[in-house]
């Protein structure tokens, strides 16, 4: 019980801190924020239930007025902005990433990568695109077109989520709550 609670709280804090880390520049000039990678890691490391709860806790901190989203954004306004769909999709994305990491019958790194893709890309976009379409009054294909520029960066994050989860499991066996 205490272990679940402290992991949820610490990973909520980790997502917040990853928002302060300067954007990571990839070799070919694509900037990626570490924060959405943190959402994927919540699922792949903590598992479905704890991962989703950690993300919800983080969003609660943002909603009550802390500027924790990357770029120092926060407060209630972000939930009325065009990207609100992505915020609502965050906990579900972590949940899906977690459940795939828990259940996929393959090595942990690959399972985490698959989970990060199904959760952090497919599920997240399934929330983000309708949100964007609603806020900007566009059709779903039009909204999908608008965010297609982010797809390459997100795919890189998927690979990184798999790599990081794999490294954690190798360095400290038993540390992954998603696989214990």
């Amino acid at each position, binding site marked *: *019980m*205490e*272990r679940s*609670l*402290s*992991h*949820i*709280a*610490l*990973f*909520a*804090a*980790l997502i*917040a*801190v*990853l928002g*302060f*880390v300067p954007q*990571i*520049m990839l070799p070919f000039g694509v900037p990626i924020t*570490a924060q959405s*990678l943190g959402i994927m*890691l919540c699922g792949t*490391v903590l598992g479905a239930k704890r991962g989703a709860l950690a993300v919800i*806790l*983080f969003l*609660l*901190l943002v909603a*009550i*007025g*802390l*500027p*924790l989203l990357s*770029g120092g*954004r*926060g*407060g*209630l*306004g972000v*939930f*009325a*902005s*065009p990207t609100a769909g992505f915020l609502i999709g965050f906990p579900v994305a972590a949940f899906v990433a977690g459940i795939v990491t828990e259940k996929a019958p393959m090595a942990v790194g690959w399972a985490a990568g698959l989970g990060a893709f199904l959760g952090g890309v497919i599920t997240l976009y399934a929330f983000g695109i309708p949100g964007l379409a609603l*806020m*900007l*009054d*566009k059709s779903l294909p039009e909204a999908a077109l*608008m965010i297609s520029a982010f797809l390459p960066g997100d795919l890189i994050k998927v690979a*990184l989520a798999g*790599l*990081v989860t794999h*490294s*954690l499991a190798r*360095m*400290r066996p038993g*540390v992954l709550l998603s696989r214990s």
Partner: protein
Amino acid sequence: MLTLTSPVETPLHRWPAGLKLALLCIATVLLFRLTTPLPLAAIALALAALHLALGRALAMTALRQLRPLGPFLALLALWHGITGEIAQGTTIALRLITAVACANLVTMTTRLSDMLATLDRLTAPLARAGLPTRRLTLALALALRFIPVLSDRIDTIRAAWSARSPRRPGWRILIPAALAALDEADHVAESLRARGGAG
């Protein structure tokens, strides 16, 4: 930890947080009902006047907080400039600005303690239904406390990296950062158990 609450005291700070949140819900629903630019422009002007009446500093902060909308407004301008649906584009842009500004205004004029008290009141029925809302409060407090701790830890990790390598740490920093969070979580769990559990 800095919050987004405005340090300049305004009359709105004294309104109950619950009332402000309820008004915000109503205002947002109404804003999304409006489909022509004129009423929305009037509301935007009224909002701007309200901000200015609350003080210049607060108005400037509010303006700065709207900056993340910039790329979307540029996109809308481009899109509707090409399709020629100017009125529709203006409506969407004004709705976006007013809805976000209203929500930011509530955040700016409500202290963190008032927000937390309102959250407690809203979750009180859940506590009566037997759900462990005390744990939510504890988790919120823990997360808040450990944001600066983990932030310092990551700075240390970056410094250690820079001492050994001329290159920037990049994504590799994520592994020790996640390990730090996991280790810290285990320590906290032990301390909580030693102090009688999470309730």
